[in-house]
């Protein structure tokens, strides 16, 4: 038969030599190899990562736990358009939309907002399509957090309490420029009027 790759190796079954048939040399060879590994593991390098105490570095494009972003002045960006839920291949996102009332302008950026927003982390495959679909740059998958293991199923349904970015004035910025807390508060007041 013609060989397709020209890399086929011809094998023939040679009768075993006496040393091979006596097993012992091969056994000692194997034992010495495993003993080398024993001392290596005992003295320095084990491949195991002891997980909760020791963590592997994440890749910079790692897609982890979702976050619902706030804008520069701390208002929720999400407008409950539902595009993320439509884009989600795993049907992990559900939300209830509501209308912004007067006086809530400092809480929600758009006139419509998500009263509830839930991601089922057991369904989610962390594909990031929700992030791509969002027109308001509201939902992101964090590159440094994962959904931790839990004992109960309902604990995997993350509501707004766990998804929305915490209100932290020190974290606010406009186009990458960090705002002082005073600046941020002043901005928020001006927007609210």
């Amino acid at each position: 038969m013609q060989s397709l790759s020209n890399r086929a190796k011809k094998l023939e079954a040679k009768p075993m030599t006496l040393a091979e048939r006596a097993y012992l040399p091969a056994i000692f060879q194997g034992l010495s190899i495993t003993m080398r590994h024993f001392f290596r593991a005992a003295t320095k390098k084990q491949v195991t990562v002891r997980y909760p105490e020791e963590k592997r570095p994440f890749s910079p494009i790692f897609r982890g736990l979702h976050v619902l972003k706030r804008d520069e002045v701390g208002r929720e960006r999400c407008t409950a358009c539902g595009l993320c839920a439509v884009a989600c291949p795993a049907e992990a996102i559900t939300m209830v939309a509501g209308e912004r009332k007067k006086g809530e302008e400092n809480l929600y950026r758009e006139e419509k907002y998500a009263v509830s927003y839930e991601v089922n982390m057991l369904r989610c495959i962390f594909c990031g399509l929700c992030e791509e679909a969002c027109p308001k740059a509201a939902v992101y998958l964090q590159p440094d957090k994962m959904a931790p293991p839990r004992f109960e199923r309902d604990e995997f349904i993350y509501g707004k309490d766990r998804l929305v970015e915490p209100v932290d004035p020190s974290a606010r910025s406009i186009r990458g420029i960090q705002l002082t807390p005073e600046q941020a508060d002043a901005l928020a007041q001006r927007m609210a009027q």
Partner: protein
Amino acid sequence: MIELPTLGWQSIVILVVFGVSLLIATYCTYAERVIAAFLQDRVGPDRAGPFGLLQPLADAVKLFTKEEFFPAGANKALFIMGPCLAMITALMSSAVIPFGNVIQFGNNVFNLQGIEVNIGMLWVFGIVSLGVYGVMIGGWASNNKFSLLGAIRAGSQNISYELAMGMALIAVLMISGTLSLREITLQQSVAGEWHFWNIVKQPLGFIIFLVCAFAETNRTPFDLPECETELVGGYHTEYSSMKMGLYLFAEYVNVFVASAVMSVLYFGGFNFPFQYELRDWFVNSQGWELMSAQNLISVLGLLGLFGKIFAFIFFFMWVRWTLPRFRYDQLMRLGWTILIPLAIFNILLTGGLILGGIIK
């Protein structure tokens, strides 16, 4: 005639030996996993307690809380008897092993051995060959073809390897001229003159005995009775909960006993090099009494024997995580066409050397 104090002392020793065997078997399950892990560059159990030392306890709790399962159509009495028998026979053989020399207090001499019988070796062999019944009965009573196949394999494997093992042993008996394990130990080191351990006189016999010991304890590379790739779990497929635990435990007790027997037969038992010189040094230059120096040597010898036993147990585990399992026909061929002729050759060789006066 056994007097009452001796009987009391013997019961204490047997109880202690019993407890120690169980303790060692318990920690073998832990050691096995740590050694396996280290041989594979891993860490092993390290969560339960410091260094994972409470792991055996966690295992026991887990096994005890598992469901007791009886397969449909199983013979219930025999099903329960199987693991019990395996455990009992495993524990019984350690009774005759001389763990140490005598310890003397005043006029009372205490022997660090369960029972001293002049047929100690036969006792061990008799009990070990009974051990296969635990496996056979368990496999048969499960009413499962994989269990039955495992049991049949266990039976034929143990019978085949017992032959070679016995013949390797005959060569030792030819040298020592006694079946008493204590005598065999004492002969490996006689005060005043340098006697070598039997391993020097019987290297070939030792290798045969070692290989057979692996087969008798159903350890890899000869663990065909429980070979999970072919037979699910072999004879203990249908077992759950602590009955399963007893089988696994019995295996480790067997490993412990096999290690002890090999240490006694071939590696001098409780003797260690320069023990008499050490004793004389204590007596002559430290001004100790002969009795207390002798007691100290006995205790050191006891520790030495356990050192040897642990080394053997480590070897058992080291081999397990190095070698793949034999195929069944290879196993049988190795037993019948290689080990038995070799053992016979070893007997002839030993006989010739004794006749020639080279070893005695």
